[in-house]
């Protein structure tokens, strides 16, 4: 019988150790998501029922936080005019990693009811990486809660890596931003 006392100890390789730490980290991150209270457009009206007693998102561990440095999730709720897109890009770059973006409403998917307007962008995914969408105009509050649970599942399956995509394809994202906006951090606010 082979003695178990002297069998070689299997050392986990560095990637496996990293992955185990990352999995533990993902457990913490998906059970305690903090969203940035940045209500861009009309879909933001669906957030108060999700936050309060009707559909309580605190039981999922989510809660609102005031500044981008402290938040994990950026909820882009609604249409994005060019002015707002500049601030969204600036805010997204100020968040600390790992960070996730959820697009609310149809306007972030394909422009929604403002798809033929000259001042609104059509596809949010070209400018900042989006992890999941919640479709609807506007989505039902139960759909919003479903969207959050979908995001938590994505984090569990390690598919929510928008922030890695942003770092790797940074040149492509920047080119899209500069094409539409000309200048992201404007110097002259009143003539942008």
């Amino acid at each position: 019988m082979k003695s178990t006392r002297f069998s070689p100890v299997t050392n986990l390789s560095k990637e496996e150790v990293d992955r185990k730490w990352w999995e533990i980290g993902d457990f913490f991150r998906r059970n305690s998501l903090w969203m940035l209270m940045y209500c861009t457009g009309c879909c933001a009206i669906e957030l108060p029922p999700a936050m309060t007693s009707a559909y309580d998102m605190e039981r999922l561990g989510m809660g609102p936080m005031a500044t981008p440095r402290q938040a994990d999730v950026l909820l882009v709720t609604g249409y994005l005019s060019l002015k707002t897109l500049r601030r969204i890009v600036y805010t997204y770059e100020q968040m600390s990693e790992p960070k996730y973006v959820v697009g609310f409403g149809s306007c972030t998917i394909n422009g929604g009811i403002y798809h033929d307007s000259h001042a609104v962008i059509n596809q949010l995914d070209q400018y900042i990486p989006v992890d999941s969408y919640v479709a609807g105009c506007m989505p039902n509050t139960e759909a919003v809660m479903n969207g959050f649970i979908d995001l938590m599942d994505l984090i569990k399956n390690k598919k929510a890596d928008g922030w890695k995509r942003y770092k790797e394809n940074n040149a492509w994202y920047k080119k899209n931003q500069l094409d539409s906006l000309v200048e992201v951090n404007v110097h002259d606010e009143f003539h942008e």
Partner: protein
Amino acid sequence: MILLGVLVAFGGFVLQTSMGGVNRKIIARLQKRYGPKWYQEFLDIFKLLSKRATSHGWIFDFGVIMALGGIIATAMFMPVSNNIIAFPGYDNFFIFVYLIAVGMLGMAMSASGSGNPLASIGVMRALTTMLAYEVPFMVIVLTIIKLSKSSSLSAIALSQQAGGDFNWFIIALPLGGVVAFISLLGMLGKKPFETYIAPAELASGPMVEYGGKQLGMLFIMHEITVFIEVALFVHLFLGGAENLLIFLVKYFLVYAIANLVSNVFGRFKIDQVVVFFYKWILPLAIIQAVIALYLGWVI
């Protein structure tokens, strides 16, 4: 001795974090919703510790380390029950008040070092609130120290236990108990004295530029600070604890009642905080001190 102190600090952190989660659940049930899990605060802190944040220079990091270090040092001195004291005889009341100030100074330094004016405004409000709630509290503690002839926390707790059942200072000095409870609300930073955090007005005040591990360490600091302050109230007014179980029960009662009281209030403006404490609470404290010391009427 030192190891016992570190264990007390760590145990206090675990206790308060669980209590925080349980209290969030209580408040949620009051509001007819479900509320988070009881270990939600642990998840929050560990999530923060696992993120990669930004830093604005050496003073930003150094202040956070100094803040957390000062609070851990303070927690090491705190007696938990009659038998669990890390440094018997040296747990003077003033050490707690001033070592908490070291923690606050460290946090204020690093908040201002981030370069955001909102952080400086938040620190200004925190210091002004501290000026408001400390003076009445200290007057009441002066009365207690004179009546129990010692300023060591465990000695004060023992003198209350020696007088028989329910010989607590909260019953002997009722006005003092009210004053100390309202000062406790100020110390914990709960509504209506939550002006220095002010999430939407000041973008959470001093914590505006923190993310990741610095914010996680500040949360740990806040939990341990709450533990120290509620335990201070338990020892000074509720007679300490003979063993660990009674301490847990008293701690939970104080913290839950404080939470429930603060939940129904809005937020004061900062000059309303100062005027409130100096117009209503300080005269009450003076009346209590005069009654107890100069006239000698103690229940």
